[in-house]
Each structure stands twice: as C-alpha cells, then as structure tokens.
C-alpha cells in the first residue's frame, strides 16, 4: 500500500483516541435548546419565529442572512421561550433563539426510516436540485470551519472542479466522531459522496483516511469496491490511506497529500487546483438533506477527556448544552479542568458548560490537572523547531515576534495570512512560548488592514 502524506512540516501529537471503539449513543433531549444565530462562516441567520411560536423538530427558525450564510432549524419540538443573547463557543455573548422542549414531534416532510435511499431511485435529482436541497437544509462544513457547503459546490467561473475529496482524516487528538460515523453509516456517506460528485459535476472522488483507522479504511474500501467500481458506474472513487501526521485534516494539507497539488496562498481556495474538499460528516449531512429531507439539526459529537468517567460518542441534537453531555459521561471530573469545544490542538477553551452544541462542534474535550495548565514561557533560543514543523512553510517565531511588536507591515510581507492556525509551532516549542496566540492576534489585525485597504 502506497501511503501518502503532505509535503511540509507536521507533528505527531499523542492521539488519545479514548472513544474509538465506543459505539454512538443517542443523547437525551435537553430541557431547553439554545440556537446561536451565527453557527457558520458568513452573515448571521435572521430569526423567522417569535416568542411563543410552536415549533417542531426540523422547523425553520432562522433564515440565511446573506449569500454566505445558512438557515437554522429547530432540533426539538416545543415553543420559543425567547430571543436573547448567550455565550456561545466563541466565548462572546451572541444573539440566540431559546426553545423550551415539549415532546418530540417531527415535521412530516422528514423521512425518519432507516431505509438506504440511493440515487438510482431518484431520477429527479439534477445537480441544481441537489445544491438547492443542500442550501435549504442549512448544511455547512461539519469539520469545524462551518463554511456553507452549497457555495463550495458552485465554484467561481475561473476555477474548474475535477474531484471531490472526502476529509475522513480526523487528525486532531481525542476526537472520534468521524470515525464512529464511518463505521456506523458507511453506505449513507458513500451516497453523500455520490451526491456531492453529481452536484460538482465531477466523476472522480477520494476518501482520505489516516492509517490509525485501519478498520474504517478496510470497511470503506470494501463498500467503495461494491458501489462504484463496477463497470456500469460512471464514478471513479478511491480510498486513500494517509500516514498519520497532524495537521493532515487541514484542507490544503489534505489536497496536497491526496492529489499532490499545493493550493496557492490566499485568496486561492482548493477548487483553484481542482479539488472540492468535504468533511465525512458533511457527506452524511448531505445524504440526509437530499435523500431524507432532513435539515441539519443533529450531529455526531465526541465527549472525551482522560479524567472523564465514561467518555463516549453521541448523536446529539444541536442546541443541547454541553453540560447535559458531560453529565451523561459521569459529570465534570474533580479538580482543575479545561473545557474545550473541539480537540486539544485547535479547540477553543470555554468559560461555561452551558454553551450549546452547534453545527461545528465535533467534540467536547475536557483536559484535566497539569495538562490543563500552561507552562511558564522561557526565552526563545532560536532552535527553529517551529520553522521545521510549520506545514505552511512559515516562520512562526518571527510572526509571533512581529505581532508582539505590532510590526503589521512586515508581518504581512512574511505571509502571516497564510497561517492555518494549526498550532504545530506552539505544540513543538521547547520554551513553551505562546506562538499561536500572538500569531492569531497578528493575523486578524493584518487581515483587517488588508480588507480596509481593498475596500477603499
């Protein structure tokens, strides 16, 4: 087996996949569900319900607030308690819709059966129809970035899509939600991939999986062989085993690893080199949206941590507070804990357990004890380890320094906006310097400067 990987940098964090073999459980319904209006990249959604309105599971509660935006659907039945603000996964107070839960009544249009729907029995599905259904169901990238999926499927006229790459890498430590999804819903994912390829008008598809998930590689290879590689199939799909290395799940790294093409610096996107990358969770959401008329209101999420009693994987309704899930795993451990939305590398530390699960929440990670504490930073000895591991070929020590001294002009010249914020530099720094913290601040300032310059 020829095992590929990306070309520059990368690290090997401890994988800590505690929940690999823990089958997914359906999480209990919350008493109250909280829906932030901004769960995606782009304009926040606009509420279409008012206080007191009755909603069912799958009712539209907020419509897209612009072209780059996505609608939001209720994941519970009940009545709208209020439209208010609450702390979401960004750590800020943001507008939310709060629904108090009564019963579990679904919209009639949703097909709740387990029957596998295939494209062959739905001749009405044109590329345009698929894109419309994906857009109307509020599907966004499920790997964490939450970019509206339909936009990726309609590339600008200057670029031509050649293939769809399914991101099943899950290189972030601890998280196993995508793995469980692959093991439990492989057929649905492949139909989702087929729909994505039809929508993008391509016939080539890849599924990139790291070799620490041999069971998933084997299962998907078998299913792909059965489904696509008969002589009558127009599609050419292959499962690509990838050498375990972080941040392989980064979109640009994955494209590089799978088809050996490097996406140029921003504003270029993967489709500029012919690739449309979709997370495996997104492929599943696309299947449900198109074939089952089920909008995006639930997802697979890992709840994990070394000190957690029963870490697990859950099929969870969005809007469920993290506290409910943590309680279902045995409650918050004793002592000092750090709560993360996401994994330890890219996750965001939260100040409240009341933060709801959103479209992009692939895991709730609890880091305990000494691991939760930052070590005291020491002077930089210019060992250049950060330069070696940076997957974008940047110089993190320099970008962090330039951000510290606010030399934005030079930071822009040194390509600070290319940073994908993977945190490899900070992970590897022997002096425990807060490299990524400084670079993030610098990057957002420089991006602001670039925006205001082009706006003039």
């Amino acid at each position, binding site marked *: 087996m020829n095992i590929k990987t990306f070309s520059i940098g990368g690290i090997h964090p401890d994988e800590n996949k505690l929940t690999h073999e823990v089958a997914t459980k359906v999480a209990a319904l919350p008493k109250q569900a909280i829906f932030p209006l901004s769960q995606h990249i782009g304009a926040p959604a606009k509420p279409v319900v008012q206080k007191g309105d009755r909603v069912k599971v799958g009712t539209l509660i907020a419509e897209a607030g612009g072209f780059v935006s996505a609608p939001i659907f209720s994941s519970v039945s009940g009545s709208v308690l209020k439209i208010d603000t609450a702390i979401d996964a960004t750590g800020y107070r943001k507008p939310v819709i709060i629904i108090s839960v009564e019963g579990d009544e679904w919209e009639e249009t949703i097909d709740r059966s387990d029957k596998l729907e295939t494209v062959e029995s739905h001749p009405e599905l044109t590329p345009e129809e698929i894109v419309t259904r994906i857009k109307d169901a509020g599907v966004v990238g499920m790997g964490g970035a939450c970019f509206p999926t339909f936009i990726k499927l309609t590339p600008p006229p200057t670029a031509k899509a050649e293939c769809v790459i399914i991101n099943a890498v899950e290189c972030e430590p601890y998280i196993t939600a995508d793995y469980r999804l692959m093991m439990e819903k492989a057929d649905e994912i492949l139909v989702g991939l087929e729909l994505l390829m039809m929508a993008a008008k391509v016939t080539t598809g890849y599924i990139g999986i790291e070799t620490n998930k041999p069971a998933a590689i084997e299962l998907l290879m078998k299913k792909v062989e059965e489904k696509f590689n008969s002589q009558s199939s127009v599609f050419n799909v292959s499962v690509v085993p990838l050498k375990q290395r972080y941040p392989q799940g980064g979109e640009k790294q994955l494209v590089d690893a799978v088809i050996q093409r490097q996406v140029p610096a921003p504003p270029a996107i993967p489709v500029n080199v012919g690739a449309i990358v979709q997370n495996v969770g997104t492929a599943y959401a696309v299947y449900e949206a198109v074939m089952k008329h089920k909008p995006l209101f639930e997802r697979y999420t890992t709840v994990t941590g070394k000190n957690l009693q029963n870490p697990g994987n859950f099929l969870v309704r969005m809007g469920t507070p993290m506290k409910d899930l943590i309680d279902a795993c045995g409650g918050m451990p004793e002592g000092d804990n750090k709560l993360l939305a996401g994994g330890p590398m890219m996750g965001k530390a939260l100040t409240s357990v009341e933060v709801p699960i959103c479209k992009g929440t692939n895991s709730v990670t609890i880091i305990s004890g000494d691991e939760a504490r930052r070590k005291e930073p020491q002077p930089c000895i210019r060992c250049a380890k950060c330069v070696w591991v940076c997957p974008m*070929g940047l110089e993190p020590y320099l970008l962090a320094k330039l951000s510290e001294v606010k030399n934005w002009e030079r930071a822009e010249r040194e390509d600070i906006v290319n940073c994908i914020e993977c945190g490899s530099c900070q992970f590897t720094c022997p002096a425990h310097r807060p490299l990524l913290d400084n670079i993030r601040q610098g990057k957002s300032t420089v991006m602001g400067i670039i925006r205001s310059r082009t706006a003039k």
Partner: protein
Amino acid sequence: MYGVIIALMPAMLASFFFFGLGSVIVTATSVAACCFFEWAICKYILKKKENTLLDGSAVITGLLLAFNLPSNLPIWIILIGALFAIGVAKMTFGGLGNNIFNPALVGRAALLVAFPAQMTTWPKIGQWDTYLDAETGATPLSVINWAIRSGDASVLEQLPSSFDLFLGNHSGGAGAMGEICALALLFGLAFMLYEKIITWHIPVSILGTAFVFSGLLHLASPIYPDPLSVLLTGGIMLGAIFMATDYVTSPMTPKGQIIYGVAIGFLTIVIRNWGAYPEGMSFAILIMNAFTPLINNYVKPTRFGEVAK
C-alpha cells in the same frame, strides 16, 4: 539543553583520558566560572527575578570553552575567558537567546588575542599527572602550516596517520582539549541527530565544503595536506558539530543553514592556509555568526503553495 551536555560527554571523557589531570582542572574551572558569572550577573547586575543558571546553557558554554583551551592553561586565564564568554558575549546582549556571537568562541578569541603564547603551546597527550608543567610539542596543524609556508611537501610526512588522528592517539602536541578525538565528537553528533536536537544541515555542509575545497587544493599542489587529514586535525569537527550548530547564533531555515555551513567550511580552509593563525575554525564561525541575522532576513523557507522554481 541537557541533551547537548550528554552529547558533549564522550569528548569530555576523551580529553580526560588523553590529557589527564590538567584537562580535569581546566574543565572544572571553566564550567564553574561560567556558571558563577551567569548567576552573579543575573542576580547583581541584571537583577532578574528568575536566575537563568539552571537552564543549562552556562554549563554548555563552560564545557565548550574548556574544549577550546590547552590543558596546561593557568586558572586565572581561564577565569578571564569565562568572564568574556558569559559577561561580554552573552549577558550584555540580554542573556540566553539574544547573543549574536557564540559565547565560548568569543571567550577563546579574546584569550587568543590577549595571551597568544599561552594559547598556542599545546601539551602532548598521555601525561596523566601534569598540569602547568606538561611537556608541549608541535600540533599536526602547525606541521601543515609549516609545509604550506615553506612550500616543502615532505614536511607533511611528519603528520600522524589518519587513523591515529581519528582516535586522537599520536605523539605530537595535541591541540585544544575537545578537539583531540574525532571519534568521540562523532558519537556526540550521532546522539544529537538521533535525539533530533540538531539537523544534519550545518555539520554536513561545513565538513563537505572543507573536504571538497581542501581536496581540490591537494590535487593542485602536494604542499596542501590530503582532505581527510584536514577534517581530522584542529577544531573543524568540534566546530562543525558543537559550535556552529549553536541554536542561538545559527540561521533558522534549512537553506540558510546550508549557506552558513558552506561559508564556514570555505572560510576555515582559507584562514588555515593563507591566514596568520594555523586554525581558522573559530574565526570562520564568528564571522558567519555576524551574518546570521542577515541570512535569516533574506533566506525564507519555501512557502506552501509557492510555485516551484
């Protein structure tokens, strides 16, 4: 940091084995003095809250300074060298991470200029119980130097065999303490590469350049020694493995490190063959230390997505 100290151990033990009592006194004095100056300057002059003594860098400087000295150097001269290394080359620039020049080499260069006689008389090996009274002799490097100056290739016949040079086992004056045994230094290199403390770029580019350049000279005229002897004499191994690879004073990108290494290898041979001193390694490294900020400024890693040239 402590990995480097472990990597220096084989060479230190080799120097104890070949030079005996003198080398133990010089090493102990140098390490103790460097640590003392680090601690005292931190506490009384910079008045830093946290003392940087325990980060291990002063121990490395002390060891490397000792490696660059003859084993019969009086204690008071070693103290001046340590003060220069830690006090002038390191702490005046702001301490660990901020110095431009390799502290141990600055210490050595200062002593070489101030005490040229004491710094260029080298004890012969195998004198276990001598210190200041050790018998001295001409080193292989001064033999080479003599051959080039006199234009008489037959002088080179006095050089020990490459195998003896490799082990450090020969009867002439033996040069600085740390340089004596190439084998021990290579053990240190292997350890540092295995532990990923350093990468191959700097040592290989220095040794490769020195080998090729001196090889071409040897082919052109027999008064120049064969390239293998060049690599096994003087401080070239010590410098390429431990001094030029100092994190703080070497470039940060692979391309930059190769430029730096090639320049050091080239300059070393130039200084050795046509300069006033028989040894050029330490000056070559110091010169390239000065160029390191410039190299860091202009030599960038290949960015992801940059069109391949």
